[in-house]
Structure formats: C-alpha cells, structure tokens
C-alpha cells in the first residue's frame, strides 16, 4: 500500500483544515513505542505492516477525508437520539453536529502517523525501564504471537505519557521538524494503520466502500483514551512499576479510567482472554457505541449493515448493563482529564 510520508496534524485546526507538515524522520528505536501500544491499548497487536489490501487510497488520505466529512456532519438522527437518551450524545461530544465532534476529537488527537512514519521516529527516552505492566503474560514478546498486524488505529500518546510517569522521566518524541513533549494524556499521537479500511470484500466478489462514519467512530474511540478521567495516584503508579505483566495490571490497577484502559474479556466471552472489553462505564467502547447508536439511522443498504455489525460488536464488548449506563444509573459521562494526584 502506498502511504503518504507526511504526518497529518490537526492541532490548532479550528476550521477543520488539515495541516500536512513536512515528513521524514530520523531512524531510531520505535518498537518501544509500539510495545506500549501493544498491550493496554492494543492487546495482541504485532509488528505493524503496511502490506495490506491493494487500494490506491492511503490511510492518511482516508483520515483527511474522514475529518472533512466529520466537519460537515449534521443529521436529525442525533437530536432524536438525544431526546430519547437524556442528551447523552451532547454530554459526551459537546454538541450534536460535526463541529462538536471535531472539537471533541481535536482536543484529544493532534497527530496522525502511519507505521512507516513511526518506524522513523526518535524518542527520549528511547526505551522504558518498567515494561511488565504492559506485557502480555502469554507472549514472550509483544510481537509475533498472532502474525502481522493490520492495525487500524491506536492512540499511543496516552501510553507514552503513562510510561513516562511510571519511569519518572519526561518523554519527548522528535520528528524531523517537530518536537512533541509528551506532557499530558492528551498529547494526541494517533497511529493510523493499514487496517483503517476503505473496503469490505464480500462473498459475492464485490468490494463495498466502508462508510466514513465507521472510521470516524474509531477515531472518536481512540480519542477517549486521551482522557485521564479522575487522574492517577502515586499508589497506582507504584502498582504499574511492580506489575509483572498486563494481566496482573488488569487485576490490580485501580485507575483504569485514566486512559480508559480496556480489560481482558472474561472466560465464556466470545473474545475471552483478549484485551478488548470494557468493564467501566463511559470508556472508549461506550463512547463509540453512543456515536454509532445515535447515527445509525443515517444509513441504509450495505452501509447500514456495516454499522449494525459495528454496534453489535461494541455492545458485546461492554461487560456491564448497557441499559443501566444509558439510563444514567452508572453516573453521567465525565469527559474531563487530569494528571497525577496523591
């Protein structure tokens, strides 16, 4: 797949314009960054690959396209949803239209990079000391257990920030013309991989264009990982420092709303053992669920079928009573972010 060699930045993009700064990065060890992504926000991901479906549309071009479409979004579906659901869409995204969605997204995601670009990043530090907390116990390495990744998207900024806190060291990412201090959870570094798909190849031999709203929902999901809701305590940072593996982290780390970290799907679940479920309300899957649920009536035909599959998948990953959450019995969505507290 042809990939643009320029990172997409949306920082300070109040009018929906997408800035394409010059690219090209110095070689250095980036797999430390991928390793972080591979566990808490991206369980099971292996070494990223650019070698996927044969299209002429790069993931970055799709991001640009999707952000523009998000800007323009307006639909009575969302207002109807809000009327029936205590204004939940507005409570989460700050409004009912595309401008609100962009504001939500741009507060949390600022840079969109491909695996190729990440592979040429330089970072300080180049590696982290404490790696147990994000390393899956079932894997000798974070790469390789399940073949080549076709990663769609992952918010790596939050994990870099957490890793810096755990190691008690400031983290900085260097691009050729850009220095990105990883100073808070909303640093907004997003990996856009080949799995950020444009097409579904159906059994009838046809390729169906995936609706932009599907990919937009992934961006909104990833953006939620930028929120360290409620902050993180020194005690919990100590838990991360002593953690031997990601499973132990999952069982003992209390502040999982900081980064809205996923949990392992429990025994008996279709995805048992995968770090691909949420057991806390208003996490990344729940935010994505609300977006898809609110907008699904905009779609017909195969687009609708794709959004239905997405909604079914999301619902299956929410381990609590979703109706309770939607009815407010698990509290209102807290969309704030914070840092370290005592």
């Amino acid at each position: 797949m042809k990939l643009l060699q320029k990172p997409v930045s949306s920082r300070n993009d109040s009018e929906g314009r997408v800035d394409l700064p010059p690219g090209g990065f110095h070689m250095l060890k980036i797999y430390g960054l991928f390793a972080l992504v591979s566990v808490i926000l991206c369980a099971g991901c292996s070494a990223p690959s650019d070698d996927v479906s044969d299209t002429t549309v790069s993931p970055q071009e799709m991001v640009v396209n999707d952000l523009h479409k998000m800007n323009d979004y307006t639909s009575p579906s969302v207002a109807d949803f809000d009327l029936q659901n205590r204004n939940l869409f507005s409570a989460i995204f700050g409004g009912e239209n595309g401008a609100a969605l962009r504001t939500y997204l741009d507060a949390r995601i600022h840079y969109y990079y491909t695996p190729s670009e990440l592979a040429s990043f330089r970072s300080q530090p180049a590696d982290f000391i404490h790696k147990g907390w994000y390393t899956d116990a079932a894997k000798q390495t974070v790469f390789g257990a399940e073949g080549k990744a076709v990663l769609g998207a992952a918010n790596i900024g939050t994990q870099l920030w957490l890793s810096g806190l755990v190691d008690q060291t400031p983290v900085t990412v260097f691009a050729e013309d850009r220095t990105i201090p990883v100073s808070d959870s909303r640093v907004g570094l997003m990996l856009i991989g080949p799995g950020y798909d444009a097409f579904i190849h159906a059994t009838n031999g046809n390729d169906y264009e995936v609706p932009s709203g599907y990919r937009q929902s992934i961006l909104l999901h990833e953006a939620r990982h930028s929120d360290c809701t409620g902050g993180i305590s020194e005690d919990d940072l100590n838990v991360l420092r002593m953690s031997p593996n990601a499973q132990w982290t999952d069982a003992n780390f209390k502040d999982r709303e900081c980064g809205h970290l996923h949990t392992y799907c429990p025994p008996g679940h279709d995805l048992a053992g995968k770090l691909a479920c949420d057991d806390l309300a208003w996490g990344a899957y729940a935010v994505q669920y609300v977006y898809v649920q609110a907008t699904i009536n905009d779609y017909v035909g195969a687009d609708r079928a794709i959004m239905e599959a997405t909604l079914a998948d999301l619902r299956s990953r929410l381990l609590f009573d979703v109706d309770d959450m939607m009815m407010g019995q698990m509290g209102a969505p807290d969309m704030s972010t914070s840092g370290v507290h005592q």
Partner: protein
Amino acid sequence: MMRVLWLPLAALIGIGAYLAFPSRPAPVDGQRVEYSPGTVLPDVKTKGPGPMAKGQSESPSAFGPIASAARVPVAALMPSKEALRADVGRDPHVTPKALLKFSVDVYNKMAVAKANETAAKDLIAELKTCALDRDGAHSVQALCLLNAKRLANQYPGFAADYHSLEGQADPQVLKIMSSLPL
C-alpha cells in the same frame, strides 16, 4: 421454419454473451464499488460516504454475483469465533473484519429475500440455524436474529417462526439485538 430456428439461436447468443461478459451489478448508489487489480479506485476525497441519504437503496440484479452469493447458505457465511478472535488479535480496536463481511453478505441475501417470498422462507430457516448455533459468536447470532425479525415484519406468515426463534435465543444475543434498531 426461420422463426423456429431463431429462438434457440437467440438463446445461444444470450448464453454465450452472459458467459463472455458475466453481468455485474452497477454501482447504483455510490456506495458499492467494484474493482479488480489495476483498477484505480474512486477518489474518496471527492466521492464517498458520509452518511448516505435516506431513501437511497441498492437494487441488486436478479442475476450475477449478488444472486449467486445469495445461494450460499448463511451457515457457510458465518464467521467462526476463532475468526473473530483472530481479527481482534490483529487489531482489537476495530470491528472484526469477518463480522463486517458477514453483515454485508447477509444484507445481500436479504436484498434477494425481500423481493421473493420463497427465497425469504429459505433465508429465515438459515437465519434460525445461525441464531441458535451453539458455537456461534453472539454478535453474529444477533445479526441473524435481527434480519429474521425484518423478514417476519415483511412477511407476516413468518411471525410465528420468528417469535419461536426469539424465545430460544441466548439472552446475551437478545441484549445485543436490543441495541440494533429495526
């Protein structure tokens, strides 16, 4: 005599033309795109989905790929749990591609069944098998149940079959389905 010969000749020409140029349904709504290696895909910057306008729909040809795919039973289209888990293993942040593909495959079968009650009868039986498959993933079963309900709504004769099916479905499947607007 000429008239007698003309009919089989025309039929032969038609069959030959079909074999030489198999029909492919044209993209009628700007959403479905066909391509083969070497074909340049449409520019998504200028074309492509935002939410699709209501009222637009696909009208699949009675012949060609959609119809032939419609003959593949749902059981053969269902992704296994292992397939879903493998997709999630590769990327936990997106809907398993196998599930997206299945949803489009079922959509194509539904398009045929909505136009033909006999096909609908066959399909609702297949959807029942899918929805009750003990080895099936809940998300897959929910999509089958949802589409069975749609057929029951369109063809009231299937309502009893559907209600029976709903009564036998796994509670987790019913919960997922409750999130899916009809």
